[in-house]
């Protein structure tokens, strides 16, 4: 579905991604690594927000390089950015609708997609008329994911959804990823490796802009390096 092949990204002279290659099929894939490893840069490259100097990014047989972010969104990739990035004064309903309003294919299915979002996060239905800024941290994160789902994406990219949330909320949030996977492939960038490994099929460990490790969830969980550096065992 999505193939990133040998991309190099720079910020000025800083070499952030080095010949990076990952692939996401019809599955959920984790992307792990410490701060500054290049997770967000990779996501920005996929989304068209940062331009790789070399390499190629292909989504369903189409090269994404040179496309503007909104064109990439129209092809069916949705992003839940790091931090919540909602419209705080807009009601929950408006925030959800804004996810679908400018993607023609999603606009037609707005009603049914919203029902799906309510099944995932019933609390949002109760909060429908409330300004998004008045929701709790966990609810806001659910809303951010809901808004991305409203675009009816084929691939949804989540950039550190667990950031700043209490553990019980993280467990609930990651539990819903299995249901989201019924609808769309998932690329999950996370530092919370322990929780993520329960939610994904396969993962990559990114260190200093390179893939240090890759494997399915079980083999990553059993890997010595992952245990020592990421699980604190």
């Amino acid at each position, binding site marked *: 579905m999505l193939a990133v092949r040998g991309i190099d990204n720079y910020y000025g002279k800083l070499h952030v991604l080095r010949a990076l290659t990952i692939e996401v099929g019809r599955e959920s894939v984790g992307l792990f690594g410490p701060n500054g490893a290049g997770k967000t840069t990779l996501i920005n490259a996929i989304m068209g927000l940062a331009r790789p100097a070399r390499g190629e990014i292909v989504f369903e047989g189409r090269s994404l390089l040179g496309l503007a*972010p909104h064109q990439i969104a129209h092809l069916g990739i949705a992003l839940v*950015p790091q931090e919540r990035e909602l419209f705080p004064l807009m009601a929950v309903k408006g925030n959800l*609708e804004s996810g679908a*309003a*400018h993607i023609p294919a999603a606009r037609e299915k707005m009603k049914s997609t919203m029902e799906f979002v309510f099944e995932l996060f019933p609390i949002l239905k109760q909060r429908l008329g409330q300004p998004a800024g008045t929701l709790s941290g966990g609810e806001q994160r659910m809303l951010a994911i809901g808004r991305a789902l409203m675009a009816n994406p084929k691939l949804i990219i989540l950039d550190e959804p667990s950031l700043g949330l209490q553990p019980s909320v993280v467990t609930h949030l990651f539990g819903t990823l299995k249901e989201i996977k019924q609808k769309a492939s998932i690329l999950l960038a996370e530092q919370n490796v322990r929780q993520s490994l329960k939610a994904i099929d396969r993962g990559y460990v990114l260190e200093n802009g390179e893939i240090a490790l890759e494997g399915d969830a079980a083999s990553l969980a059993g890997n010595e390096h992952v245990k020592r550096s990421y699980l604190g065992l």
Partner: protein
Amino acid sequence: MAFPLYAGVYLQHTATIILTYLCLALSWDMLVRTGQISFGVAGFFGIGAYSAALTALNLKLDPLLSIAVGGLAAMAAALVLGLTTLQLRGMYFAITTLALTEIFRVIVRNLPGLTGGPEGTVLPSAIFDGDPTKTYWLLLAIALVTIAISEAFQRTRVYFAITSIRHDEMVARSSGLDIFKYAVFVFAVTSAIQGIVGASFAQQYAFVSPEGTFDIDFTLLPIAMCLLGGMHSTLGPIIGALVLGSVAEYLKLQLPYGHLLVYGAVITLVILLMPQGVAGKMKEQFVREQ
């Protein structure tokens, strides 16, 4: 709205001025909703005014038709400016629009053959032969159309577009929005309104001049009105224009130039006490009571 039928000429004229500023304030606010601050209102106002006056004078165009030409000219100028500068938004855009008014003032002043130069140009007659009632209806119609456009921007998916551009461009892009296209679109529409208002102003007074037409007041007063009334809504600028417009007119009679003091005081107090403006305060109160 129908009060001019009973009011005297003076009140009709005052109402016409308030409606003029109401349109400018509302159109300025419509662009602010995308996060772009324009200091070029007087510029588009002046472009509209001069285009209308010159086409009416030289091409013998019907006054109403010349007002439409004024709107188109302002829109064309906004398109050229927007297509070149709206790739860089925010501060860069604001500074460009700040220069716009000055540039056009200088151009107009230095083309005496076409524009009458520093002395300006006088039209043989004001629109509707100077009938203040008809002029009032004209401005009321323009104001209603402006309000309708503003509401359309608030109620259709344009609303999601402009709101997400203002809040977070990254979210806007990754929700499938072509930011540049929308910013240029809103800029062109709001500038066209300012051009039409300027054109009606020129037709109403049958006179255009570099200093009077490209007057910085046409930029600053609408901004003050939006600050007072509250930004990011249709109601806010309307309230601001009605309040500040009436107060200013009253004070002009009581103490010459005193209205300028009041503008300053009002803006300072509003920013200190209710930064969200009157409409914002009302909305907050409403939400609290629910």
